[in-house]
């Protein structure tokens, strides 16, 4: 058992303006953040979505900002998320650090507590999810741990608001802690050497040394930027000697010492009564069962289809587009503008065929908004229920055939909501190779919610066999391109390692907050582009360039794809956002301008089209312009190619006639 001693020091930043919230993923950090600030924040149940750092003003301490950092598993940091958190700890003069820990997983929580305490930060520990811990028969004696660490430890249930007042009081009283665990002699000597060097460390020199020995990337960068070469050389020498002594990894030794320390502590402070397995746990096991997991997955997908495709794209769109806009608002506005606006061109600009209101606003608010809204609600529920990582487990084998692992399903499912957002979340994948593959497949074959709703509506109007063909073609393209790309790209496949959070009933307000934030993001990003697209179309139409452009596209649209000539203008809109094109096809279909075959070919082509201008920007930003534009150059002709081939195949089979 490693010995330790605790020394409390006065807080060097009593008037500090920042407090940080730190903790493992899925411990309820964001819910606590919300309780302490009363401000909205994105909450998620799978590791990786809280990439951005949220900030808010503390309710009970005027002028103090609370930073919600991305979830960390431990240091040295392994992911971009963890590096962000470490930088917050390094660079901010923190008044207090609140560690949020999962009471159910005490050992895991304490590994992080030790590291934070070693840094000499003014620390408090909020032991969250006490309700779940009690339900599992765990009884925790916090006073034992409080003595050992010398920090306040508060039992909380953030979702119900219990323990929050105590946390607020503890924030004000927190003092820096110095915890010292005894490591093996060679490591202690190395720490001493570094402690004698003359430089200002961003955290305690002891914790800094330990991070340095573990080759932590943030620490590495700090040393490169903040120490003279003489010090740096000395630091490298000390570390090199240790690495030679412990070839299996210095970090392994450090962790073993901490584990020893924790084992003793947990022995003294944790009692476990025998508890029965809860129904949620049982259901959780069923969801990854090789046989039962599949029908459950299908049922979840069907429920989602019903909510988004039938209720959102059908009922809500019908009410808004046909009734509210089609029969009430738009006729009234057209009549009004005919009376009030004498100039035809202005009238056309506002309420004409490509009118800012009649096309732009109507499409954006009446057609797309209900679909996007229902999708974000459904996705938020899935995310908070803890089901998504289980989908990763179930789909792992499928993704392994295209050189990925089940983790890729998370950006893919999010892509069904918004490809641009999903492209950003490919960061949760560990390797550049996986990120490139998933980015390509997202852009090529994953329809976003806006488009999906329109597509599902069109498919429902044709036949079930059309839906099967559409799904079949998209799936085939996904697998084929994925398989080919994984052969071409260098590098090996990474095996799946994923935490399965317990299945939970989603908190209603959390889902709503999240949906609203995503909706806001969608409106800010998509609606201006929608209006811009309409204006471009209007200008092209007014100067009679549109017919010329449509004429140019005609051989492709009519000759190769076998669609009516008007479809070219819809396809043109697809360059801005492919859901605009889908919406155009939707309107054509409902007016009887497309045969079943033409409707199916048009939606298959547009599903494989580039998603939207914003997604192209995101692809270029995340993957670099070479890869980003390369993907666009591949996707455009490829989608047209597949559409034409499908048309020829289906008409030779006599489908739809």
């Amino acid at each position: 058992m490693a010995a330790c001693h605790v020394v409390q020091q006065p807080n060097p930043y009593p008037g500090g303006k920042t407090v940080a919230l730190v903790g493992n993923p899925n411990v309820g950090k964001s819910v606590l953040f919300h309780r302490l600030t009363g401000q909205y924040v994105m909450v998620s149940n799978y590791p990786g979505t809280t990439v951005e750092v949220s900030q808010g003003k503390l309710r009970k301490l005027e002028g103090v900002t609370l930073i919600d950092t991305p979830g960390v598993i431990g240091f040295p940091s392994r992911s971009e998320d963890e590096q962000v958190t470490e930088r917050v700890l390094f660079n901010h003069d923190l008044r207090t650090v609140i560690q949020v820990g999962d009471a159910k997983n005490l050992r895991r929580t304490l590994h992080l507590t030790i590291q934070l305490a070693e840094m000499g930060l003014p620390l408090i520990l909020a032991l969250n999810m006490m309700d779940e811990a009690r339900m599992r028969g765990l009884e925790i004696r916090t006073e034992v741990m409080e003595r050992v660490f010398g920090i306040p430890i508060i039992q909380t249930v953030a979702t119900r608001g219990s323990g929050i007042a105590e946390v607020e009081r503890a924030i004000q009283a927190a003092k820096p802690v110095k915890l010292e665990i005894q490591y093996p002699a060679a490591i202690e000597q190395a720490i001493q050497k570094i402690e004698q060097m003359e430089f200002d460390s961003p955290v305690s020199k002891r914790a800094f040394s330990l991070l340095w020995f573990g080759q932590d990337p943030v620490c590495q960068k700090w040393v490169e930027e903040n120490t003279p070469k003489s010090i740096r050389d000395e630091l490298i020498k000390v570390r090199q000697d240790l690495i030679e002594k412990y070839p299996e990894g210095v970090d392994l030794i450090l962790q073993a010492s901490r584990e020893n320390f924790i084992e003793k502590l947990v022995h003294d402070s944790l009692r476990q009564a025998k508890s029965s397995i809860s129904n949620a746990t049982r259901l959780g096991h069923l969801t990854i069962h090789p046989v039962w997991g599949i029908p459950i997955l299908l049922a979840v997908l069907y429920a989602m289809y019903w909510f988004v495709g039938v209720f959102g794209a059908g009922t809500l769109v019908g009410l808004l587009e046909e009734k509210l806009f089609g029969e009430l608002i738009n006729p009234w506005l057209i009549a009004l503008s005919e009376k009030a606006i004498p100039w035809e061109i202005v009238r056309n600009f506002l309420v004409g065929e490509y009118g800012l209101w009649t096309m732009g606003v109507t499409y954006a608010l009446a057609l797309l908004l209900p679909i996007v809204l229902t999708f974000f609600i459904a996705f938020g529920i899935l995310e908070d229920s803890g089901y998504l990582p289980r989908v990763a487990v179930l789909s792992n084998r499928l993704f392994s055939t295209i050189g990925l692992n089940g983790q890729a399903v998370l950006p893919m499912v999010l892509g069904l909501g918004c490809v641009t957002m999903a492209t950003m979340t490919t960061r949760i994948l560990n390797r550049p190779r996986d990120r490139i593959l998933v980015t390509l497949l997202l852009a090529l074959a994953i329809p976003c919610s806006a488009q999906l709703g329109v597509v599902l509506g069109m498919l429902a109007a044709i036949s079930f066999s059309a839906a099967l063909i559409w799904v079949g073609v998209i799936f085939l393209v996904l697998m084929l391109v994925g398989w080919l790309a994984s052969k071409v790209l260098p590098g090996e496949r990474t095996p799946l390692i994923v935490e399965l959070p317990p299945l939970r009933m989603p908190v209603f307000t959390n889902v709503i907050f999240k949906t609203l934030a995503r909706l806001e993001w969608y409106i800010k990003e998509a609606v201006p582009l929608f209006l811009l697209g309409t204006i471009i179309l209007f200008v092209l139409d007014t100067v009679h360039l549109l017919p010329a452009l449509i004429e140019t596209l005609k051989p492709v649209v009519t000759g190769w794809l076998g669609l009516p000539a008007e479809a070219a203008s819809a396809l043109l809109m697809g360059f801005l956002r492919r859901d605009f094109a889908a919406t155009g096809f939707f309107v054509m279909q409902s007016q009887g301008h497309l045969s079943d075959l033409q409707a199916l070919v048009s939606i298959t082509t547009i599903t494989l089209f580039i998603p939207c201008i914003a997604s192209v920007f995101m692809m270029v930003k995340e993957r670099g312009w070479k890869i980003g534009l390369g993907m666009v150059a591949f996707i455009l002709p490829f989608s047209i190619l597949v559409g034409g081939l499908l048309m020829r195949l289906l008409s030779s089979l006599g489908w739809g006639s």
Partner: protein
Amino acid sequence: MFHHRRRQRCARGFEANNHCLALCQVAPGREVKIREMERLHPPFRGHLQAYGLLPGRCVRVITQEPITVIQVEQMELAFEKSVAEGILVEPVND
């Protein structure tokens, strides 16, 4: 107590016996103690250890299909067979 005992060999060529075997050989429902993880590719080892899968820790196997799922404390962790093969465990007397 353990399935596939005859067909599979323990990592590092140890004969599978009651003192040492790979995690992928442990039957669901059993509790085992982690003995060593040195055969694992270092990044995967680091990843698992950060989750608390450390030598000396007791874990319970929940299932081996479609992939290995174990319980560490009250947390469930899923990983592929290729990873479970690299973790040596010993039985816990319960």
